[in-house]
């Protein structure tokens, strides 16, 4: 027998390599010679050993994988690794809506709306969802009317669970009390402890978030996810948090939610009475937000290290982002962006800007913003830095898509292709846009359209950007609409447009049917020529030549002391988009050299005006200058804009402009999105290929 173990290689992990290793090893001996024949008994033994070796190797590999956050696959392993980083995976979040509730004929001075009254949503896909209010509210009654404003209601069913503490549980420091519902929304968790069953009063325990502030009397509980995926709570050991005593009664109450299914519910009916009264109306203020399911394994892997590196403090940009992502007070969100005031335009020193895009909505409410600042950011941010929560600034994309397709390659009708392409574009929007720091990528849009169906030969699109805002109808105001990308200088009717029509006051008359447009300017000549290098030793005035895509521009140089002092534009010319200035030394000047200059093209700022069509349908200008367009910066400014009416039930004005580039990126609080509520946001025209 060969003695040396050097013939056995331990690095092989697959069956065939392990078996061939054994065979190599057996080649060194004479006793068993039939190791290399499939039918031999030796071969059967080798198969068994190789299988066993591979099984163990695989098993060890898996065990090692589960030991690290990066490679763990099982949820329980990921959760356990995250626990070391002091990270508790987020639970399901209930969709929440806001309603006003009005009661009439109330015969008392005040009315109290207790917690967890039932509301039923109108059917969504045939299912009515149960909502409950999450806070107790009391209002005063005026003239028999009690009006609860902005009541937050959450989708879910209240549930509670009671544990009686035994002495063995108290002595076991690792004892945990399980919350047996998998769909609990832990932000709604209320934990109370009664001294014993004979007591009526109880203490409310809070979720422990910071170990530094805990003492032996802190009434706190610790929350963690269990190995089976439910949540469990633990109590203090008498040093970190108050210790329980035998006979204590723990009551855990919470909401179990159906997650995202109730998203969008916006009509509610109250199912239980309040003080014997049923509401006269329940007005929906905000439709139910999306909500969310339990945090995914991938998300835990992503969030836990970031949350750990922030160490519960917000100093860097990523600290803020992870602190907010970790705790949005139960508000589901699509994205967060943070930037320092020094990066802002204009710079604001000593502030940090935070922008949060809630899921299924556009902006946070005022209360939500104040709560996020005071409860999430302020406690962990540096004292001299003022956090400011700004609303996302939406730029809407309006697409006019033409799709050319071959009807012989598909059995879909033109209408089916049309709706399919629309759906593909919406999916593209959801995937690539609709969050911070995103880029509108032409190639990806065209591929999304192309990939919808093989019959599509080619497609093209016409893009315009829209800003939507609510002008103040009472007082004149200045508005700055930032498109975030250079705008096209448009010709008549193809540049900046507005909808719907506006009304303006002219003396005592109200003129309606007004629109905003760009004042047409066809001639684009040179505004000025600036000297970048005056040169030296010019004895004669050099010739200035302007080359570009326009015609007719001329200029002359003014020389003083051998240097070019300035260059004067004689005729601005027209039709220029680029111009190059060449300085040629005069023929009889042998020494002058080195002068250079560049040209600035006029029309960097366009002008906006309002117009209407008068009784005889003739277009008339109402106000020839209501604002400017900065084409290069992509900013439209409306100055002293004072419409008195907008022909739109929401009072929303849309101003569209065409970008001069089709690569559009969003920065800061800007979000590029396709408006899901605008049916005309995507227009698809399908053109069948005709075979003739």
């Amino acid at each position, binding site marked *: 027998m060969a003695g040396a173990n050097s013939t056995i290689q331990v690095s092989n992990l697959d*069956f065939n390599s392990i078996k061939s290793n054994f065979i190599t090893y057996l080649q060194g001996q004479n006793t068993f010679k039939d190791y290399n024949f499939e*039918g*031999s*008994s030796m071969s059967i033994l080798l198969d068994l050993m190789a299988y066993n070796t591979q099984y163990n190797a695989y098993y060890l590999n898996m065990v090692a994988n589960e030991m690290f956050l990066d490679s763990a696959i099982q949820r329980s392993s990921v959760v356990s690794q995250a626990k070391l980083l002091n990270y508790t995976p987020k639970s399901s979040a209930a969709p929440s809506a806001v309603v006003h509730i009005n009661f009439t004929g109330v015969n008392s001075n005040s009315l109290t709306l207790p917690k967890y009254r039932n509301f039923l949503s109108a059917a969504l896909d045939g299912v009515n969802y149960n909502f409950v209010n999450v806070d107790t509210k009391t209002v005063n009654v005026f003239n028999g009317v009690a009006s609860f404003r902005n009541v937050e209601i959450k989708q879910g069913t209240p549930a509670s669970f009671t544990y009686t503490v035994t002495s063995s549980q108290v002595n076991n420091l690792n004892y945990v009390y399980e919350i047996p519902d998998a769909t609990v929304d832990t932000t709604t968790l209320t934990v109370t402890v009664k001294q014993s069953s004979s007591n009526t009063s109880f203490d409310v325990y809070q979720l422990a978030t910071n170990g530094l502030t805990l003492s032996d009397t802190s009434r706190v509980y610790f929350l963690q996810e269990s190995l089976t995926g439910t949540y469990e709570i633990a109590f203090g050991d008498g040093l970190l948090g108050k210790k329980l005593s035998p006979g204590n009664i723990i009551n855990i109450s919470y909401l179990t939610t159906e997650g995202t299914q109730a998203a969008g519910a916006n009509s509610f009916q109250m199912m239980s009475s309040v003080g014997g009264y049923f509401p006269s109306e329940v007005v929906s203020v905000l439709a139910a937000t999306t909500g969310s399911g339990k945090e995914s394994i991938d998300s835990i892997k992503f969030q836990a290290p970031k949350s750990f590196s922030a160490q519960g403090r917000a100093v860097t940009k990523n600290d803020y982002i992870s602190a907010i992502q970790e705790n949005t007070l139960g508000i589901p969100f699509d994205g967060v962006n943070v930037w320092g005031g020094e990066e802002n335009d204009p710079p604001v020193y000593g502030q940090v800007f935070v922008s949060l895009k809630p899921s299924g909505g556009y902006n946070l409410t005022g209360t939500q913003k104040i709560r996020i600042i005071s409860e999430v950011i302020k406690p962990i941010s540096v004292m001299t830095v003022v956090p400011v929560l700004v609303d996302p600034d939406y730029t809407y994309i309006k697409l006019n898509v033409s799709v050319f397709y071959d009807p012989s390659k598909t059995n879909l009708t033109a209408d089916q292709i049309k709706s399919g392409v629309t759906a593909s574009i919406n999916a593209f929007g959801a995937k690539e846009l609709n969050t911070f720091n995103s880029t509108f990528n032409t190639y990806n849009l065209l591929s999304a359209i192309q990939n919808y169906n093989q019959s599509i030969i080619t497609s093209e699109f016409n893009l315009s950007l829209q800003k939507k805002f609510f002008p103040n109808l009472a007082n004149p105001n200045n508005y700055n609409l930032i498109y975030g990308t250079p705008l096209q200088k448009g010709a008549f009717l193809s540049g900046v447009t507005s909808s719907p029509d506006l009304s303006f006051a002219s003396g005592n008359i109200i003129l309606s049917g007004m629109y905003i447009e760009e004042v047409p300017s066809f001639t684009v000549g040179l505004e000025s020529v600036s000297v970048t290098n005056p040169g030296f030793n010019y004895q004669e005035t050099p010739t200035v030549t302007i080359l570009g895509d326009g015609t007719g521009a001329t200029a002359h140089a003014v020389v003083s002391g051998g240097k070019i002092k300035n260059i004067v534009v004689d005729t601005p010319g027209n039709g220029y988009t680029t111009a190059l200035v060449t300085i040629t030394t005069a023929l009889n000047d042998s020494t002058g050299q080195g002068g250079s200059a560049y040209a600035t093209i006029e029309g960097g700022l366009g002008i906006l005006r309002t117009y209407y069509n008068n009784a005889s349908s003739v277009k008339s200008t109402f106000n020839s200058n209501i604002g400017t367009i900065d084409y290069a910066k992509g900013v439209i400014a409306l100055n002293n804009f004072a419409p008195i009416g907008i022909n739109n039930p929401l009072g929303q004005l849309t101003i569209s402009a065409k970008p001069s580039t089709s690569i559009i990126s969003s920065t800061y609080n800007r979000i590029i999105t396709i408006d899901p509520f605008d049916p005309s946001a995507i227009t698809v025209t399908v053109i069948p290929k005709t075979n003739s």
Partner: protein
Amino acid sequence: MAINYFYSDLDLTFLKKPVDGDVSMKYNEQAVIRSIRNLLATNRFEKLFQPEIGSTINQLLFEPVSPLSASLIEDEIARMIDNYEPRATISQIKVSADPDSNSFAVYIAVFIGNQASPTAINIILKRSR
């Protein structure tokens, strides 16, 4: 070792040799015959990671006992020996159906190594369950 064998293999019965108590072994022809028997008794997909090694004889035993089944078993035996037993060269394979006892009588004659005369293997194939 006193005698030098061409082929030496374990005996899967794992019986003790009465003389020295060592595990019993099979040598030369006996080793090859045992190997062929092992191959024929192995079903497809039975060997881990090597699903292709093995015969369909087991399934064929549940077919009607007829000359057709016998012929298929013959082919299967030939295929197994050709593919997986390089030490044996087939001289003759004969499978006769015995419907009365619900079995097949198998006669295999193979040249083992460079033997001058073939070695005969007689097996009765009968389904056991």
